[in-house]
């Protein structure tokens, strides 16, 4: 088997005395889509944030592209160029135009040439249908548009891995489709992704594998089709029944 893009071994995470994540073991293959499911408060956001260093963790080993990750500020700052993340709240920088939001990372972090980075930014904006909004400010955009720009901003660093934490959860229903479409296209382009979502139809369609988390334990890590057709645990069965499709 090829080297996985990301391997998580025995990760433990607590906030103070509260143990949030228990012995997390997770393998993510290059070019695959993993959907992380679980009830509210099960630790999905906490886990995903541990994977790009926004949360620290007490013990465990991460291996990215075959390289063990030493969790310190410097390593994470480097790795975040390869591990993009998009949040539920579409937090574009309100003081910058769309284009400047997108170019900040490529220019200041990666020190790429303005011409080249801008060409790529424009191309990415076209792909998400927002080529006309380069000079707009975030406040002039709808939630769905902002979220697509936030995705472009992450992609502009040419990441190898993308984390999506409920990126459609605070959008109006009519905005959700456009954002899911962007994720679908990324999956088709073989971007490796870890997606937290409550859009179950979308999850079923896109998931190569499903990781089911409950109270900080991974109860299942199974191929997508199998999870939705025939979940292994009763807890997952109950969870699936509780969701609307």
């Amino acid at each position: 088997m090829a080297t996985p893009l990301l391997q998580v071994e025995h990760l433990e995470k607590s906030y103070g005395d509260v143990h949030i994540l228990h012995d997390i073991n997770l393998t993510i293959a290059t070019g695959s889509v993993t959907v992380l499911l679980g009830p509210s408060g099960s630790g999905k956001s906490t886990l995903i944030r541990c994977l790009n260093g926004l949360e620290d963790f007490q013990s465990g080993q991460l291996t990215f592209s075959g390289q063990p990750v030493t969790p310190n500020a410097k390593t994470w700052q480097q790795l975040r160029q390869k591990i993009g993340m998009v949040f539920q709240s579409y937090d574009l920088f309100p003081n910058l135009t769309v284009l400047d939001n997108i170019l900040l990372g490529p220019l200041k972090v990666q020190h790429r040439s303005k011409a080249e980075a801008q060409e790529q930014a424009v191309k990415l904006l076209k792909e998400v249908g927002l080529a006309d909004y380069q000079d707009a400010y975030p406040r002039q955009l709808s939630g769905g548009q902002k979220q697509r720009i936030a995705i472009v901003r992450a992609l502009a660093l040419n990441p190898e891995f993308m984390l999506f934490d409920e990126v459609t959860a605070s959008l109006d229903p009519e905005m959700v489709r456009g954002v899911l479409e962007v994720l679908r296209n990324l999956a088709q382009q073989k971007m490796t992704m870890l997606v937290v979502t409550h859009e179950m139809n979308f999850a079923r369609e896109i998931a190569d594998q499903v990781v089911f988390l409950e109270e900080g334990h991974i109860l299942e890590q199974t191929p997508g089709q199998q999870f939705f057709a025939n979940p292994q645990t009763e807890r997952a069965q109950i969870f699936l029944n509780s969701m609307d499709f």
Partner: protein
Amino acid sequence: MAHSGINILFAGQNFTRLLGGLWVSAKISIVSLVIGILLGLLLGALRTLKNPVLRTILRLYLEFFRIVPTVVLLFLFYYILPKNFNVNLSAQIVAMLVFALWVAAEMSDIVRGALISVPRHQKEAGMAIGLNGPQLYRYVLLPQAVGLMIPATINLMTRVIKTTSLLLLISVMDVVNIGQQIIEANRQVYPNGAFWVYGLIFILYFLLCYPLSAWARHLERRQNNNA
């Protein structure tokens, strides 16, 4: 012949001397504000870091300049420090130094308050695209904090300008000091000189400070409406 008291302002060089004194006050205000605000930006940013030692030191620095009356600070730097440390600074330099340190202290609190009210998500979004600490402040946090800092900063400016009226106590030739000299020198000819001289000084300070404080109020109101 009955003198009209207002002429005291125009006798001899009086008017230009008063304006010259005002210029000294303005110069001290401007220099100390520029230095103090820049230093305050740095200190305010440092105060948002987690380092407990740094935080305590900067907190003490702020409290010192806030609690000790400005007059005492001026005396301390003008009369006491030179004696004990053998440094001789001109009164104007001492004034600029004290005011700059004071502005930096107050400013650090304004900056810190504005920085910590930038939503946490913004910081995380910046980290997620790989910005390092200084870049995060430079491109994400400070630009968003500046808008929140402006009204309080303008109010600080007016306080600094007003406080320059204390500078005569360390014999800076500011507008109040010159005004007193003019009143003394003309006591025989213009017994009511004080009224006119202080009246003019009042108007001059008003002209400097009122536009600033009106501007600050306007910005504050606009922010409250937007919030």
